[in-house]
């Protein structure tokens, strides 16, 4: 119940924000019948109406994971954000070893298996995509 109400609230805020953002679209020099803001306004309306429906008639509460599972997902998310940031710094191979080992470990493997999978995945994908297929993956200080 509550989750859907929250979704409705967020959706409603989003709809209002979207409609406001549509009003500040600069006026083009030559415009057509409904202009660049007409259709976005309709979309904001649909977004808003469906959000109101969630608030008024929410579905039964979904099964949220326990707090530690939620933290698990949060940490994985942080690691992925971190990966995107350090990729150009560390280079593909090292960054990928770290993230793959982390994810493997958190998905339930023993630490040694996790490190092996990290190294194997990283080197394997590097060989496959950069050396064989010639994609340019992020290069680190050592050139890989």
């Amino acid at each position, binding site marked *: 119940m509550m989750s859907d109400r929250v979704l409705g609230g967020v959706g409603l805020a989003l709809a209002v924000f979207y409609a406001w953002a549509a009003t500040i679209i600069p006026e083009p020099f030559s415009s057509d*019948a409904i202009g660049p803001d007409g*259709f976005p306004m309709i979309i904001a309306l649909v977004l808003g109406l469906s959000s109101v429906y969630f608030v008024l008639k929410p579905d039964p509460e979904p099964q949220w994971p326990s707090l530690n599972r939620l933290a698990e997902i949060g940490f994985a998310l942080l690691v992925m954000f971190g990966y995107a940031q350090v990729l150009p710094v560390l280079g593909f191979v090292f960054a990928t070893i770290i993230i793959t080992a982390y994810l493997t470990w958190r998905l339930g493997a023993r630490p040694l298996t996790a490190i092996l999978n990290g190294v194997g995945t990283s080197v394997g994908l590097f060989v496959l995509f950069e050396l064989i297929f010639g994609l340019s993956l992020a290069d680190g200080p050592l050139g890989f």
Partner: protein
Amino acid sequence: MDTFASLYEGFAVALTWQNLLLALLGCFLGTMMGALPGLGPANGVAILIPLAFTFGLSAIAALILLTSVYYGAMYGGRISSILLNIPGDEPAMMTCLDGYPMAQAGRAGEALALSGVASFVGAFFATWGLVFLAPLLVQIALLFGPGEYFVLYTLAFATLGGIAATNQAKSAFAAALGIGIAMIGVDTQTGVQRFTFGEVHLYDGIDFLIAIVGLFALSEVFVFLEHRGSREQGKDEAKMKIGRVTPSLSVLRYCTPAMIRSTVLGFISGVLPGAGASLGSFLAYSVEKQVSDPRSETFGKGDPRGVAAPEAGNNAASGGALVPMLALGVPGSGTTAVLLAVLLTLNIQPGPLLFQNNPDVVWGLIAALFIGNFMLLALNIPMVGLFTRVLLVPTHILMPIVAMIAFIGIYSITGSTFELTMMVLFGALGWILRKLDVPLVPIILGILLGNEMEVNLRRAMTISNGEWTTLFDSWLAIILWTIAIVGFVLPIFLGKRVKRKMKEAEEEGPLSD
């Protein structure tokens, strides 16, 4: 005879060594992805799009590779349904009901072989259906003006939830979210910036590939993290004896009527908006049960017909789903939405003009589907043992690899940290929305079709000088509106009941024990 001439040309396109090899590779990868629980046709194709794009394959070659993956995944879904009682992908759910009991009775090999043949029958005849129906639909589509196109897109969104949708507001919300995202960037009609707030990375809009890979593939990683441990059970059983993998002629003959009925039903539900492969296999199974076993004596206990029907049904539906996607440019399911993304990435706009301007692409693709079908039959019967071994690879090894391929794909097309961050955000959003039962497919479709929908609306309004009635003033438009409204409203009354039926079928079966 025109059709046959085109098809002949298509074979000339598809029958090159490179294309045959790509088809084989695609079938192989697809079957593997379909077999692995958690990696279905939609996310399987999704993570491969950026790669196919950066490898610099020609449009037709990339298309052959990825549609082979699509067909392959539809075949592969049944493997884990039968051996593990875990559907490899959603449409393979019904195959669990009789497939797993067959496997428990020591007839796993037979079930795999039979379902392989059934998949072939479904997909093969559905491809013929595509050959004949798509050009007809193109004839109708040529009558469409911009107004009709706008209504057609509305129809696609209205019916996307399908008959089993329980909450249409959530479908509408998802569609609006997707279309809203599509609006970000430079307005193609006037050149003004919309919703970019001065952020340079947003000027070109958000690449739909980032959204698709994030929403489909990455959110799956989060789902696995959430359920760590609870999905691993049953893995040991894959080691069970498979037995003989050649179907006996008598069983095949026994199942032939079931396959024929299911192929027809599956194909129709594939073509219709809002149905798709899952409903195709569900319908095929339930109708077959009504026809062959009205007193439910054998179905659910390992009846071979209960394996053949849903497999023929879901593969026929996946062929049928290509009809509206290719002929109208409007996909009716998640996986075909991803295939639409493939086309758009390759700068091919599907729809009636595709048949006129790029017949080599269309017919080459169709020819490749025929060839792929035979390859899949060959891969799936004698070599099925190989794929069952894939199931033994633990999820914790596999999911990180999938995630990394997703990262590589997006990085290879954008080369920027910003886009990777965005993909991760979409992954998290996908997980939250899945929890809240908000469907992801309308979001994808919205991002893909949003701009096209707006362009058609504005074109229609310009032609009519801003008169909104232009959207209702042809018979075609009125028919399309009617279907859209019925398709949106009907599930409000029927959705809960259909959903309950699907759930019941599932629970009666071995899934509950």
